[in-house]
Every structure is written in structure tokens, then in C-alpha cells.
């Protein structure tokens, strides 16, 4: 496992940085700091996830990156071009959806795509058709957008985002409104785009499960601050190392003390259960030990810290930190 990680890190180092964000800050006119000194980068072929609760500042950061909002401080560079001073050259490499994908309701999906295509040079009709096929909208593309379901709008949204073959794709809550099948399709589609077409993708979401399955790197945002940036493997390792065993016993206090003395691990008590910080492999040993000490066992569970707990812990730590200050 370790070797594999090393190799992919090396490969990542060779890939060019498509999006570089340094000290990005947004202060609103009422004084509220929505985004506080965020820095990160996304390379070609990398899927970077912004993870955070609603209101954490993900959308605000994305709006600054795409030029929709004014940057209070900091810099955003796309393929080396600054969004502030070289807007047109920077943004032409970007496609995306910010919040919900709104298109012109009185026009059909195809007409909308043709309109967006006309804003660039050299997008041929064949490319438009190709993109429609890619998002699976061949059957409904000629209907008015006003009649589309949310899922269909998402698909056409993706279509207009990749129409001009951008190097950076920015998606704000892309699985919003999709059914489980659609979510799976979207996930595979995005992975293909990144890994086969070498497109850098920036995704923001609050759905942890999705992010965990999709992203190569996750940046956690809370209250406008980037808490941590982790490659996904590290997060998974962290989860692994947080496995616990939950045992339902008749004398939890006594059993707990026994385990602490014997195995030297922290133990929590919860009603008539004890929770011991040991991996699955230790279950037979514990069971044998407790029985040998005369403890009756009524149930055993493995408990892994969920991704949710990991992140919530991280966020709690951060909030506590800021409260102290």
C-alpha cells in the first residue's frame, strides 16, 4: 500500500497545477469574514473536494474563484493566469456550475448549448452533440429547459460546463437532486473526466460519503477557514486506526477495569456496554479473557469511526480552538 501511495504522489508532482489559490479572503460589507485566508491547489487530473457544512464558505470561495464575487484579498490563478488581472484568459479554461444550474427556460436544452457554444470560437456542432451524448440527454435535449427535472438540468449543466473543453471544472453540489443511479453515473463520469481526460475538478459538497468515494484530495472548510487538506488515503487510514469494539456485559464497570489492566487501552462506558479502542482482530482475545473472568457477554459489535465523526471531530477541534482565542 505504501509503495503505491508513493508512486501516485510522484505522479501528482509531475502534473501541472491548474488552479492555485493563495490566501483567499472574502470580507462582506457588514464586516463578516466569509472566507478566511484559504490556500490550496488543484493539479490536472486531480479531483479536489471542498467539504464543509452549509454556510461554511464553500460557495463564496467558488464564486471568487470563478470571478462572480470580488476578491477581498488573495490571489486565484488558473493555468497561471490571474483571475483579477487576466480575467478573460483565466476564465476561458474554466467551466462549471455554481449553485443550481439555471439556464434559459424559454429555450430548449440544445438551444441553450448552442448559445453558450457561440460565445467561444471553434466549437463545432459535432462537439455539442458529443457532449449531449456524454451526459445522456439525447432524447430530451430539444425540449424546453423549463420542463426539465432537476436531474436533467444537472446533466445539461454539466454539458455546458465541458462544452469548451476546459482544463478546470468547478462543480458546486453536483449530485444535488440526483437519484442514487444518477449519483453513481455522475461519479463515474467525473472520474473518467479527471483520470482519462486529465481535467482538474473542484467539487464542493456537504455529503461526506460522496466525497469520500469521488475525491482524490479533500479540503475541509469550517467558518471560512481551511482546516485540513488531506489526500483521501490518509483519511481512510485515520478511519482504520479508529476502530473500536463494543461489548454488552452484565458488569460493565468491573469488566472495563479488567480490560484496562489487561490490554492497556482506553475504555468508555455506555449504559451496560463497554467500548474498547481495539481492532477487530482482538475480538477473540477479549471474549476469551472476559469469559475467563466470569463476565457474561450479551453482544459484540465492531465500531469504526465514521467519516462523519472524523470530520465533525476535526471541526469541533477547530471551533474550540477559535473559541479559546
Amino acid at each position, binding site marked *: 500500500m505504501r509503495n503505491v501511495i508513493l508512486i501516485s504522489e510522484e505522479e501528482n508532482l509531475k502534473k501541472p497545477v491548474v488552479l492555485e489559490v493563495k490566501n483567499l479572503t472574502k470580507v462582506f460589507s457588514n464586516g463578516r469574514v466569509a472566507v478566511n485566508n484559504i490556500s490550496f491547489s488543484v493539479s490536472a487530473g486531480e479531483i479536489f473536494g471542498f467539504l464543509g457544512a452549509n454556510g461554511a464558505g464553500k460557495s463564496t470561495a467558488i464564486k471568487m474563484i470563478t470571478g462572480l464575487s470580488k476578491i477581498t484579498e488573495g490571489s486565484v490563478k488558473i493555468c497561471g493566469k490571474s483571475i483579477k488581472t487576466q480575467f478573460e484568459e483565466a476564465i476561458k479554461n474554466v467551466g462549471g456550475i455554481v449553485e443550481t444550474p439555471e439556464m434559459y427556460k424559454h429555450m430548449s436544452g440544445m438551444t441553450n448549448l448552442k448559445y*453558450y457554444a457561440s460565445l467561444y470560437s471553434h466549437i463545432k456542432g459535432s462537439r455539442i452533440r458529443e457532449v449531449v451524448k456524454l451526459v445522456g440527454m439525447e432524447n430530451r435535449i430539444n425540449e424546453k429547459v423549463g420542463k426539465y427535472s432537476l436531474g436533467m438540468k444537472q446533466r445539461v449543466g454539466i454539458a455546458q460546463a465541458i462544452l469548451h473543453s476546459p482544463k478546470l471544472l468547478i462543480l458546486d453540489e453536483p449530485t444535488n437532486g440526483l437519484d442514487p443511479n444518477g449519483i453513481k453515473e455522475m461519479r463515474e463520469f467525473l472520474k473518467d473526466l479527471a483520470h482519462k481526460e486529465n481535467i482538474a475538478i473542484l467539487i464542493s459538497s456537504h455529503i461526506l460519503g460522496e466525497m469520500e468515494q469521488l475525491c482524490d484530495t479533500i479540503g475541509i472548510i469550517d467558518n471560512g477557514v481551511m482546516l485540513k487538506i488531506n489526500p483521501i488515503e490518509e483519511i481512510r487510514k485515520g478511519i482504520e486506526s479508529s476502530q473500536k469494539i463494543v461489548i454488552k456485559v452484565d458488569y460493565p464497570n468491573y469488566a472495563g477495569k479488567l480490560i484496562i489492566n489487561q490490554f492497556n487501552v482506553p475504555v468508555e462506558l455506555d449504559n451496560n456496554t463497554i467500548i474498547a479502542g481495539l481492532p477487530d482482530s482482538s475480538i477473540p482475545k477479549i471474549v476469551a479473557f472476559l469469559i475467563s473472568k466470569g463476565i457474561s457477554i450479551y453482544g459484540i459489535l465492531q465500531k469504526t469511526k465514521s467519516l462523519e465523526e472524523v470530520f465533525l471531530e476535526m471541526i469541533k477541534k477547530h471551533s474550540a480552538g477559535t473559541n479559546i482565542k
Partner: protein
Amino acid sequence: MRTLKLTLAEIKKMLLRPSLYIMTFILVLTLATTMFIFEPKNSDDGGKVTIAGMATVGNIYSEFTSLNGLTTSTYYLNMLEAEEDNLNFYRDINNDDSKQLILDLYLSGSTSVSYLFNDYYTNHAAGLNAATLSINNQRLIDALDALRVQFNDEVTQQPLGILINSDQRVGFSEAINSTIYYLTNLKDSSDFSNSAVSNMFNTVITANYLSLDYPYYNNPTVAENAPNIIINAINSIENIKVDVSLLNSLQEDHIQVARTRLDAIMTQMSTLNTEKSASILFADKAEMNELVSQYCATVLTIERIIDNAITLDILKTKTDIVAIQYESFSEYYSYEVQEEYTRYQYLFDNNLMSYNYANPFSFLVSSNNTRNTYDFVYFAVEIASVLIIIYAIALGASTVAGEQSAGTIKLLAMRPYKRWKIMTSKLLAVLWFVILFIAISLICGFIIGNEITQGMVSNPIIMVFNAQTATIVTPIELMAIYAASVFIKIAFYTLIALTMSVILTSNAAAVTISIMFYFVSVGLSMFLQNSNWYKYIPFNNLDFYKYFGGAFIADTTQLTSIFSTPMLHDMTFSTSAITTGATMLIFIIATYTIFAKKDIN
């Protein structure tokens, strides 16, 4: 340019809106229905005087050269002499200050003085009893008596007293005498409400008073001071002077030239009479009548020139606002007088006959004596422009505010175009449709106009630019100028709509406010007509076509005059251009700046 590409894309987007086609339909329908309210009056001849109903050429000639009647050469010669007398009159009064009272018959009265007397009897009528009445009466009587004496003295002692229209002099004296009679015979306060009395007061006042001091109106001590006020005011009456070189020029360059021309015409007439006196042929009679018309037109042109020249000279030091406080000039618009003057100067200098030339922009009085297509086009487009303004506002607002509230602006802002390019493309796209709608209106106007009028027959048109320069243009050229002027006006309100959209974000709010602004501005322009601020207010300066002639024909009974604004209070083409241009520039800067700096949500 890439902005052009963006503009084309915006236009294509707008072409897919159903509202565009509904608007076109409504526009055409409105244009079609305007023909039912189009009621042009055929104009009177504008100087063409012909003698009809005469059997032979000789009959016409002798009728015209006879001494009686209002269409004889004698009548017109008398008119010319009267103008000469006028010139002499002004020449004389230039030299003598003591003619004030007489002059004030021309420069007379101020509304504030009627307030003085109205206030007197209104404020005091309630508390008056017979005793008080007689005291207050007495003061007034004394004042009026003094006035009468003064007037009579002035008039009888000066040789020029004969210049006063004898009717006027008699009427004035009678008015004073009647007022005194009424005052001495009134017994109680109820008699003061007699409107005949107040009219009497007004007549007295009219002849003598010049005052710009409105505080008299609410002054409680006015009753006591009334006599002194009157006398002081009389003493403060202004002198009139008319520029001597103008008088000389009018004499030599105009009246003398006119006399020469009249003699020549008369010679032609007499020759024609000698040759064809007995002819009953239409062509010959028409030829004689043409000479008659030329004769009369020459005199009428001179009359207009002299009248306007002197008016302009007398009032040259007064702004319109001041001038309209003189009762004789209560509806004086210097622009209109100047325009008429320029027009008739042009006709005279080039020896053209006014009835051969049409007036521009004079629907309801048609532009070449019979109603034609161009009159209808002007009328129809004037009405259509209201609709177009409303639609342009709606389109402009929806393309900015609408896209913001619908959220589609987000995807547009993520394209490789700076914000100013996006705003420019939207502005140009809306203006493109404005041009299109103006074109549709013109075309429909022409088609319908052709059907219901005498067609496109028109005299050449005398266009007077900025009241200073006269040229002859074809109706098509004039329509082009008119279309451009309508475009500027509509563009103005479109710009406002864009600015509102960028500030307000909500489509409904931006549209509502902009349309309200339009209607309020139309109302305000009527309401503010006597304000000193009139010419500084941008939306009063939008009808640029008015600077191309037709101002002096402005007739407030016309239906669409409520949408057009008069040339009031020293407005010129330059002042309007600067005001409008500066305002539009401010709106453009505001729109672009706000849109560029805005966070899009």
C-alpha cells in the same frame, strides 16, 4: 470585435422570447387604430389668398385693385403702411422717456397686481361694514383718480397721443370712471364679490402696472398702501428701446424691398389684365390668382418679420420666465418667435412664397395644406413611441435584472468576457430592437398613411434648425431626423432601465420604477412649465426633433402634445444636447461601474 459576437448572441436570445412578437403585434394594431383618431385639419393657405368666383381674368384684377374689402391690394398696402408707422413709432419712443404710460399699453400688466386688488377685497370683505367700506373705498378712489389724471395728462399733452388706438384710450378712461362709480356706490361687502367689479379692477390694472413683487399678495397692510403702491409702480414702468439699426434695416432691407416687389407684381398683373382681361380660361384665371397670392404673401411675410423682429429686440434682455409675467407676453416663448422670424426671413430673402412650403411636424395642421402620409407617420410614430419606450424598458430590465433573478447571469459571467462587454452587448441588443421597432412603426405608418391620406404628395419643407438656420428639405430627410430623435429619447429611458436593473436586481422592481419614472416625467414636464428649472431637467430635453422646426406651430390641443415638450425658457439645441448627453453619460458610468464591481449571487 468579440463584443459584437456577444451582442449577436444576445440578440438571438431575445429573438426567442415570445413577448417580442406579442409586442410587434400590439404595435402594428395600435398603429392601425391610430388612423381612426387622426384628424388633420387642412391648413389655411399660409399666405395664399385667391379671389374665387370671378368670371374672367379682368374681374379678378379689378376686384383685387378695388378699394374695398379684405382681399384687395389696398388692404394689404395699408397693412404695409401700418408696419411703417410702427417702425416710426418705435423710432420716436427711443428718444423720449416720458412715453412710459403709452408704451405700457404694449408692455402691460402683471398678474401680481390683480392679486393685490383681489387680496384687498377678499381679505377685507368679511369684516367690512358700510363705514369701513367708505374709508377704504376712498383710498382706492383717490388712487384711481390720481391715475386717471396722470393718464389723461400724459395722453393729451403729447403729440404721439394719437398713436394710441382711440378705442383703447376711451376704454381705459371708461374703465377708470366705471370703477370709481362702482366704488362710490357700493353699500356693503356682498357687492365686492361681484365679478364685474373685479374685472373692472383688472382693466385698470392692466393698462398701467408693472411689478414683479409678489409679496403684495399676502400683505395684510395692502389696503392702506394700495394708492402708493399703484403710483410707485406706475413710476417704475420700464422704458422701451428698440435698436435703431434694426429699425433702419427693417425699413430699407424689408419694407422698401417689399414695395419694389409689390410694384413689380402689380405691373405683371396689369400686363396680364391688358392681354387677357376677357379670358374665362381656368389657366389664365389661375395665373392672375397666383399673382394675387404673391402680392398678399409678400405683405404678410413682411408683417411677420417686423412683428417678430421688434418683439425679439424689446425682450432681448429678458429671459422667458421674466417675459411671461408681462400680460402681453404671457405665452411668449422666445424660441418660437425666433423660429418664425428665421423662417420668414428666409422666405423673404429668397423671394419665396410661404404657401409653397410646408411646415415640419405639424400634424393636425397638415404639412402641405392637404393631409399627407408624412403627417400620419409623424402622428403614428409619436403614439407608437410610448409603447416602444415601455417595451424597451421591460426588455432592458429583464435582460439584466431578469437574468439576475433567474440566475442565468451566473453562467454568462463565467464566460471569457469582461463585465463591461457583457453590459455593452445587452445595451446594444436592446437598442437594436428599438431601431427595429421604430422601423416597423415608420413602415406601417407609411403603408397606413398612404391608404388614408392624399398620399406622399408634399411641398418642400422649410426646416429651421435651432431657430437660427433655415434650409429646405424633403419630407424623407425630415422623417429621418425625426426617427433619430425618437431613438435618442427611447435610448434615454432604456439606459435608466438598465441602471435601475443593475441597482435593484429584481426584474419587477426595475421595470416598475422605470415605467413609473417615464410617466411621472411626462406629467412633471407639464407641471413644471413655469419653473426656472425647466430647461435643466433632462427629460424635458428629449424631443430633439423640435429643434428642427415646427415649434411655432405648437398647439396644445393636439392629442399627442401631452407626450411632447415645448421649447420653453431659453432652451436651445446645445443646452438640450449637453443636458441629455451629460445625463446619459452619468447613467452609463453608473451602470457600468456598479455592474463591474458587483458580486453576483
